[in-house]
């Protein structure tokens, strides 16, 4: 479970980086904002193998993912504690 979550966090950060680089907003003739994805997906642009083979995820990104994972775990522990307390009261 932890592995899956960690992979997901990394994937999310990685995707955000890619899209920040690739997507530029323009305006069309009606004055409305438009964006051309040029044949790319929105969100996950690669498969999981490509992500695992990629070496560009730096230490800072991993540290941030670990931080988020810790927050998530603490939140789950607190929730579990509350549930146990409620069950004990019952």
């Amino acid at each position: 479970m932890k592995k899956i979550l960690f992979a997901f966090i990394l994937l999310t950060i990685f995707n955000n980086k890619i899209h920040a680089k690739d997507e530029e907003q323009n305006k069309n003739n009606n004055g409305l904002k438009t964006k051309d994805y040029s044949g790319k997906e929105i969100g996950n642009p690669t498969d999981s193998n490509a992500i695992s083979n990629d070496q560009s995820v730096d230490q800072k990104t991993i540290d941030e993912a670990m931080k988020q994972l810790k927050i998530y775990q603490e939140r789950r522990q607190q929730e579990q504690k509350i549930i146990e307390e409620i069950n004990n009261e019952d």
Partner: protein
Amino acid sequence: MKTSIIFILLYYSLSTYANDYTVGSGSEYKMVLNKSNTVHLAIYVSQSIFEKLGVEMYMKSNDMLSPEMWQQFIFKMDVGGNFPLKITEAYFQTSTLKIAERIPYEAMIRKQDGITLDNFFFTKQKEIDKDKIKDETIEVAAGQIKTTHYRKKRDGQTIDFWIAESIKPISLVKLVSTSSKKDENNYTIELTTLISGVRPHINPDKSAPLSKEGADILSIKKH
């Protein structure tokens, strides 16, 4: 994230106007749930072959622990029939699921509180016009747009929505849902940009039946 919300958007916007559906074209929206949780929402055409129309939707919350989600719906178009569009297939995938899974028909049509898909089954123009408030020019993140304002009410939920034929192919410009009964029915959706050239994420030919994990994600019972 609620599947029912999206059904509403798709059905309404696609059944109201007969457009040309260019694969990869669509709209991106900013969706705000309960005034705090922001969702990046994109809706675009995934396939358009004869009477079959595929529409894919991408959602990602600002909460990093929520998975990204893709949903794809296949509509059968019945030009001149009583119901111009009928959903025949539905698929979904999240970043935690390896492959896309099929959403069972019973899950698509399940009864829910408030305004649901069947409230948007219009067959005649005068049925749509019943909900019309007025023509309005509104300012959204994408720019200033001439729209028609509609309103629907049911079970304590009110949905105000603004539609523009010029916003092809999805048509929806803005939607505001309010409810005193259910917190999850308080949300807004606003057009941020028109999009083109999007490659669909889900390939229906490589999908699997609904798994237990998938059923849990969609909060539906697996038979």
